[in-house]
């Protein structure tokens, strides 16, 4: 059986890739994708912990289910805002959105 730490390693890597996406991408949609990646890393963590540590209690799985439900809701709201901005400014580059500063 694959040891637990490998799952955790993958999850951590995925989380970092997602975070890097948030920092590196200028496109708001890509940033959103980065955030989704981070949430999925969490899911991998949760399910792995559940499987290896408390396989008889459902809470890890349920937690994971909640996380992707919430991720979906966030994505919906996020896309709506991005589309609204796109309509207005014809751009989804986050650097263009900098009226508010200082």
């Amino acid at each position, binding site marked *: 059986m694959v040891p637990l730490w490998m799952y955790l390693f993958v999850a951590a890597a995925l989380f970092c890739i997602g*975070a890097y996406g*948030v*920092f590196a991408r*200028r496109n708001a949609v890509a*940033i959103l994708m980065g955030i989704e990646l981070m949430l999925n890393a969490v899911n991998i963590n949760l399910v792995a912990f559940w499987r290896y540590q408390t396989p008889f209690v459902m809470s890890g799985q349920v937690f994971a289910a909640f996380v992707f439900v919430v991720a979906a809701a966030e994505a919906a709201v996020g896309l709506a805002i991005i589309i609204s901005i796109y309509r207005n400014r014809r751009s989804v580059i*986050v650097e263009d959105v*900098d009226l*508010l500063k*200082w």
Partner: protein
Amino acid sequence: MENYPQLVPLIILIPALGAIINMLVGARLTERWSSLIATTASALSFVIAILLYSYLHASGYQAAIVNPPVLQDWILIESLNINIPWQLRVDTLSVTMMLVITGVGTLIHIYSAGYMHGDPRFSRFFVYLNLFLAFMLILVAGNNFLVLFVGWEGVGLCSWFLIGFWFDKSRGIGWKNANAARKAMIANRVGDFGMLIGIFLTFWTFSTLDFYRPGEIANPHAGEHGAAVEHVEAATVEGETAGEHGDEHGDEHAAGPVYTDNEHIPTEQLGVFGQAERMLALPEGDPGRTVALGPFRADIVAVLGLITFFFLIGVTGKSAQIPLFVWLPDAMAGPTPASALIHAATMVTAGVYLMVRSNVFYAAADLTSLLVTIIGVATALVAGFVALGQWDIKRVLAYSTVSQLGFMVAAVGIGAYGAAMFHLVTHAFFKALLFLGSGSVIHGVEHGHHETHHAAHGDGHAGEADEFDPQDMRNMGGLASRMPVTYITYLIGTLALAGIWPFAGFWSKDEILGDSWVAGLVNNELGGFIALAGLLLAAAFTAFYMWRQVELVFHGRPRTEAAAHAPESSLSMLIPLIVLAVFSVIGGFINLPGNAAIPTLGLDAVLGVHQFGSFLEHSVVNIHAADLQPLIAIVALGLAIGAILMARSIYGLNRGVTADRRDVLEANASFSRMWRLANARLYWDETYRRLFEQPFNRTSQFLADTLDWAFWHDYVHDTIIAKGFRAIGTLLSQPVDLGLIDGVVNGIGRLMRWASGGLREIQTGYVRTYAVSVLLGVVVVLIILLLPYIQRALASGN
């Protein structure tokens, strides 16, 4: 039912709430709603008072102390060991007052709805009435002198509002009203000064202001000689945190033994009265009796004499006694319902309440008690005499009130606290009735005047017509047929006030007379003699001036067109009259005497005797239950009837007012001097003006012109202070300020601005920068959390 005392904060809050509602939105409400809100508030208070009474009745007259929420640590200075909680007290004395205040108050609210109809400040009037109720209830419900004082000041304020209510009337009348209000305020201020000193002295002596502490029983001997009550009494503690304030003994009551006295409570945990009783019980010369007041040491009796004396000053202000009574007759400038409620039935009796509440003090202070008696009797006589010569219908009643208050005060002086309270209650009924009746008369005459004025006269008479005084009894006469309900109720009030059997006044007044008989002729006390002689004469005066008033107002022929056309008042004004009239008839039966010589219509079998006395006994320690003396009763009744007959023969059959608008007595050469003296109010106000006002004005003038302006301002201020200040300022500002302080302050300011401006630049507006910042934060937090762990791991690895 045992939780009913918890309602007592509401009895204050509801009228206060009514006042607030009317204050905020009253101007936008119709008269109907405005008066409805105020009257409902008052009526709800009355209902609560009844509930409180039922609690007392059910619990064997146990007193209850209630700590309202929020204010339980009202004044708490632990380092100085000062703790004055905002506590309320439900006992027989306070509930008696509450019932009178809210009961009469509610009727007067109803009456006011009719009387004040059409006034531009209709809702404002009800604000004041409700506010007054709230303060008056604070006064009687408080469990310590300071809460009482809050109420005491509050009612004074409301009284001031209401006396000056018509401050904006035209042509000088407004000025007169405002001046009357000011006069009341100033006279009361003098009294309050005494009151405050009394309170300070009390605190100094006993280190507390509480009347009684939770768990303490006011009168352990209650019920021993009273026939009615056989319960074993135990005081209860109400409110969540009552135990905190009093003692640990309060809590024991819940489960522990039921105490029937206070022996188990240490002296320092008793209220003022309990402490005073303990000290008085010690033998003469015992060190425990000595009170240390700063450098002075005095026996407790002497200290109580001082305290009671200063309280007496307060009483003379609030209850309109000599020498401060001059404000009350002028207070009639206010609207009649306010006069009835405040200046007849309730507020002015606050002084009597205070003295009855402090009966332990007064009973110990013989000298002050004698002074109290003298003041009471003198006031009763002087005011009774002055009332003989007044033309203004309300002024007669005002002096009559002063005179009756004198009766009560004198009763306190001879130690008849129960009789004083009894007279207070019955007086509240019939005096409120008389005032409301007079209001009804004034109202009627005014309307009659308007009617005839508009019907009969043209514009040319406007000037003359406006000088018409609807309160002048010379303008009345023959109203009995025009205003039958008002007439009959007024007649009942008059007979009650005159002390005619079996109306309420007979029982209460004759109890006072009976008690003074016992004090004077049985116990051989000087105060008793004075009271007996003086009060008998005053009682005769009472009957005389009241009947004179009835003759002038209601009998005979109408002397003016206005009186001839006066209409009867509206129903909302008549109903309170009728209710009060009923109480003026039956009010005396609450305290029937135990003496077969006085016919009691068989009521003593039903109601028992001395009911009121044994009721009060649970809160008033030194209650006397002297029986009515048949001889005195007959003499007093004879005097009253004789005075009425005399008044009838003098003023009856339309003879009262001569053609030149003079009193028949004034026209008579042998009485004219005396009558003029009464009419001029014994020159009392003039004497005051000569003695106090003018010297005061001259002194203040001197102080203002010479001392303040010439010396203080010109010399001290300009020369010494200003120049010195400028010199020091120059010294400081030159080197110190300009260089050092300025530099530091400005430097810090500049530094902050610079830092602020720099840090501000971080905020670039780019969302990804912000995300990096979040990441940085995560890293920082993680490092802080993990560093010791890593260190330890490395250490253990080595």
